[in-house]
């Protein structure tokens, strides 16, 4: 049996190896739906139908767009802030010591606490929603970039000094390339966490967005609706990973042969 699977699986290319298990799971899921309660676990075909209906006749695109907007703004804000704080902490020992306690608190405080406090202080506003997500993410970016800044190769800065490179060249040709792997790490992690937090924020205090919609489906025990929105969401995540992150990363890190 094992040998047979290997014979089928081994000749596939990378994409085939990625896709085959997913297809198998979906097929099994579809078949098993014939023998179980479709209210508890709707079949993939039913979810796809609903997804299609919600997309072309319902408000799915609007809610997805609102969520993506929140994700984009808070992601950018968190990346910029976290990167600056992380680099400063990695380079200057005094900054590191001053902020380290706050960093540990920021990393460990439950997302829910930050969300609720932001809503209480700033009301159920868009600003509060985005602020809550950003605050949740900044410490994680900072930790990653601090590692990167600590790992900067001092010997290359000596080269820069001997050959009298400009500050701009030092930043763009020596510092940033060394930080890139850490930035990519933070981007990946960042997106993954932010999706999750944005939905909670929307559930608790927004009147639109995927989180708000899923909250609505929850009230009616509409599992198909929940899964249809989740599926739309997954498609966006994969599109970003495959169309944006991977090619950009591959290009920027092509010097690692």
């Amino acid at each position, binding site marked *: 049996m094992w040998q047979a699977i290997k014979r089928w699986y081994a000749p596939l290319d990378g994409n085939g190896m990625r896709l085959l298990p997913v297809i198998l799971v979906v097929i099994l899921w579809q078949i098993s739906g014939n023998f179980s309660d479709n209210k508890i676990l709707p079949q993939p075909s039913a979810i796809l139908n609903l997804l299609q209906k919600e997309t072309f006749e319902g408000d799915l695109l609007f809610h997805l767009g609102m969520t993506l907007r929140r994700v984009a703004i808070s992601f950018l804000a968190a990346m910029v802030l976290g990167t600056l704080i992380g680099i400063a902490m990695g380079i200057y020992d005094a900054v590191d010591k001053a902020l380290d306690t706050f960093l540990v608190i920021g990393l460990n405080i439950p997302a829910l606490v930050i969300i609720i406090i932001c809503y209480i202080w700033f009301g159920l506003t868009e600003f509060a929603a985005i602020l809550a997500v950003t605050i949740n993410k900044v410490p994680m970016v900072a930790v990653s970039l601090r590692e990167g800044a600590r790992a900067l190769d001092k*010997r*290359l800065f*000596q*080269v820069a*000094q*001997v*050959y*009298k*490179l*400009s500050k701009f*060249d030092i930043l763009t*040709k*020596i510092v940033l*390339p060394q930080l890139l792997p850490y930035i990519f790490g933070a981007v990946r992690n960042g997106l993954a966490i932010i999706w999750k937090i944005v939905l909670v924020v929307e559930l608790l205090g927004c009147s639109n967005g995927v989180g708000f919609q899923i909250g609505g489906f929850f009230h009616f025990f509409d599992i198909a609706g929940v899964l249809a929105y989740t599926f739309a969401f997954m498609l966006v995540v994969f599109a970003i990973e495959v169309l944006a992150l991977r090619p950009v990363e591959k290009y920027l890190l*092509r*010097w*690692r*042969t």
Partner: protein
Amino acid sequence: MSFLSIDIQDKTYPNACVAIQQLKFTATQGEFIAIVGPSGAGKSTLLNVIAGLDTQFSGSVRFGGSELAKSDVTLGFLFQECRLMPWLTVRQNLQLVVKHTHATPHTKTIDEWLQCVGLQGCGELFPAQLSGGMQRRVALLRAFIVAPDVLLMDEPFQSLDAPTAAQLRSLLHELWQNSAPTVLFVTHNLREAISVASKILFLSARPSKVILEYPLTRLAPIDIESDEVSTEHKKILETYPNLLAGLHLD
């Protein structure tokens, strides 16, 4: 006329290790000086001090007779490792340093320079795609392309196999004769020093100072395995038997 005059009273590391004490020497313009000393004698520290990478010392480093502003002196530095930027292509690595030299006798384009060191067609490659010897060539080229007044070299050919090192030594000599920078070539290999330099400075063990200045008469590079080098090598060791141990001479 001395172009470079070094007078380091004291260089002590924060951990109280005294690396250099009372180290003095001068170099004329275009002179090729090899600096030989036992390992751990503070040779790398000396180069770092001269290059201005290490400013925690007492004493002076003067260029062109007076204490010239460091910004007026163009330096080339060949480190023990190549220290190329791995994310930049060979061409970008060279362009990076060329941009900032105000002395710009760029009669040669980067392609002509590459050809000149036998790296034609390698401009678009990344350092990791080159062999160790080729990476050295790029580093050597980077040091020369800025048209340096002073070229500092810290055991640059140490990790290479013998034929590659010999090739690079003769390339170095060729480049040196064309533009005649003052060269300080640190090595712990006396044969190598004899084969390239016009003068050898012997350093003592830590705290290091100059214990002997030994002029050589020849200007052309010679093979490190040649009889000429062997004869000279023998002569030096017979005259100064304790030299390479880094002991102070009486």
